[in-house]
């Protein structure tokens, strides 16, 4: 579904949504569930604050990206099928991760290349699933969620969000409305933090070197806080900063928007 079409679809959904229950289902992702639960809670708070009824289906597990990235398609396919079952009846699904959203909207179809019925389910699903910042700007139609956070911050564009989902302005628009927040851009912009899932384990030293290059860029920007909409990027940046003894706050966009 092209970005433009998704926006048109979103407007339509929004109009229809006023007439019915504004219910959203969270797919928090396994990283958030286990390591950064506060991100999930922050996202829920923001959505509830906008008048959405927030659900969490406990049956959820993972999008299958670790297996897919490592070349284990059959295994990834199993996990994808389970995901389709879990979220079969969710009207709208919101995800605090660009990479997980992209896995679902861009790669699930490949996994079911010989199963037309499953591909149809994937197609229907991809109309109902949103990365968090895009959900706010395109579906909820808001940019100001009443957040306040005094800090000098920079925004890190996760590669999947940026290049697969085309997300760049939505998070920045949201951040521009956060009271007290000064947003600076990094140079170089849009460079990979070096996580890459399996890559960070198989090529740990190289991944670490890329993380350090990212830390340098953050430092150059003069920001105290780095914000991302991808928990895996935050894990990578935070981990490298901590190891290097660099004082740097890492926050997910949801946490920033939930700040008062």
């Amino acid at each position: 579904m092209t970005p433009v079409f998704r926006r048109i679809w979103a407007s339509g959904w929004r109009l229809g949504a006023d007439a019915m229950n504004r219910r959203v289902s969270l797919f928090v992702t396994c990283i958030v569930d286990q390591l950064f639960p506060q991100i999930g809670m922050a996202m829920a708070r923001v959505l509830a604050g906008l008048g959405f009824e927030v659900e969490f289906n406990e049956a959820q597990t993972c999008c299958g990206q670790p297996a897919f990235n490592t070349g284990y398609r059959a295994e990834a396919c199993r996990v994808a099928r389970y995901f389709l079952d879990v979220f079969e009846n969710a009207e709208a699904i919101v995800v605090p991760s660009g990479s997980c959203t992209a896995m679902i909207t861009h790669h699930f179809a490949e996994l079911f290349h010989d199963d037309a019925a499953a591909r149809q389910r994937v197609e229907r699903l991809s109309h109902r699933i949103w990365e968090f910042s895009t959900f706010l700007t395109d579906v909820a139609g808001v940019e100001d969620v009443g957040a306040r956070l005094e800090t000098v911050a920079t925004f890190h564009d996760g590669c999947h969000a940026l290049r697969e989902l085309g997300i760049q302005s939505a998070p920045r628009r949201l951040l521009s409305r956060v009271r007290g927040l000064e947003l600076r851009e990094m140079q170089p912009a849009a460079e990979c933090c070096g996580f890459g899932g399996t890559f960070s384990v198989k090529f740990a030293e190289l991944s670490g070197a890329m993380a350090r290059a990212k830390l340098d860029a953050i430092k150059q920007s003069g920001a105290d806080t780095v914000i991302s909409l991808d928990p895996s990027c935050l894990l990578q940046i935070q981990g490298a900063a901590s190891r290097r003894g660099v004082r740097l706050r890492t926050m997910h966009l949801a946490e920033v928007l939930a700040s008062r």
Partner: protein
Amino acid sequence: MSREFQQHIHDALADSRLQNAVYTATGRLKDARLAVVSDNVLSDYQELRTQANALKRHAIDHLDYYLEQFQRNVETHGGHVVFCQDATEVSDFVLSLAKERGARLIVKSKSMTTEEIDLNERLEHHGLESVETDLGEYLLQLAHERPYHIVAPALHKTRYDVADILTKRLNVPRETVPEKQTALARSVLREKFLAADIGISGANFLVADSGAVVLVENEGNARLTTTAPKIHIAIAGIEKVIPRAQDLAVFLKLLARSATGQLLSVYTSVLSGPRRSGEIDGPDEFYVVLLDNGRTRLLPNAERRQSLYCIRCGACLNACPVYRKIGGHSFPWVYSGPIGAILTPQFMGIAREPELPFASSLCGACAEVCPVKIDIPKLLLDLRSEAHSQRSGFEKLTFRVFAWLACHHRLFALAARIAARLRFKVGPIGAWLSQRDLPPPPSHRFRQLWRQR
């Protein structure tokens, strides 16, 4: 992971001078490209990419037709086409021609294809002198090194390295000023050009409707290589063929911009045969060697076939955060960077370096800059599935267990809770921890917090 690959990467990361050289040079090339493809400078850049992809797709999908058309047109103009399956056939051809003509000295312009087949080594082994004439390649030839980057072969050398090379190999007083170093190489090579019996070039494009070889360069050495000697041999992979001369209107606009940020390279030559009567200079004999060397193996798979669209601009190398950290010599073959990562396993088999497709964070920067829109990340993922057969039993089991757990949410939650608390410094977790800290496990997971709210 193969020890050699791991070692090369480690060495590259440990060499901070090299790191700086590669990072800075590729950064400049990257910025130069951006300056000439942005919307206000080239408003139809994206459309050109789409056209280029479509033209390459068409040419490759009908490759036999265009190869035959190319051959017919070369022969109409008095040239010859020689099909070669591998490195040996190419060197056999060159050697026998050289022998027949009593040729001793060969000048060469830059060609990754000839690097691929170690042509110089083979020719030298048989007593011919084959001199690289592109400045960077010449310096590397003197230093007995492989090129570091598709477009900027001596990226990793400082002027002091160059001074060392020149002093040692040419027996000249030490000179560290780049302009003077260049002038020295120029005078040495000029003699070679004018005395050479054969000029060997690559080809950026082979034009089917013209029987022409297109050479794109900045120095003028390719022009001299193909003008001064009486014999010109162009050696090119079969995938270089494009249907029509007018297609160059698309490709030429993309090549120089993507490679170096120039609007056009200084010299673009379209050469279609030995000199005609009435033409004063130019070669008397013109040969085009069409090389397979494994390219036909990439054709059957319709997805993988796009690997052959590459026009060797090097933009993917300049955009790649991995290449920019580890440089060209960390890669196992002559083609490095993202394009090298997809070509190497396909040409050499995945067993050559099973970890190569994994040496990427899949950030997608390469696909974004590729002028012919090769979906490199997709092919890397595809190759990772193929590498499956090389994976350890332990890894396979891990993912099978992972997939099973991911379909049973209570067990998944339990297993994840345990895994999040593991801090053993061994295996994958150890690798992770060697570079960064894991956050302390939270007192409550999301599920718990949710239930409690």
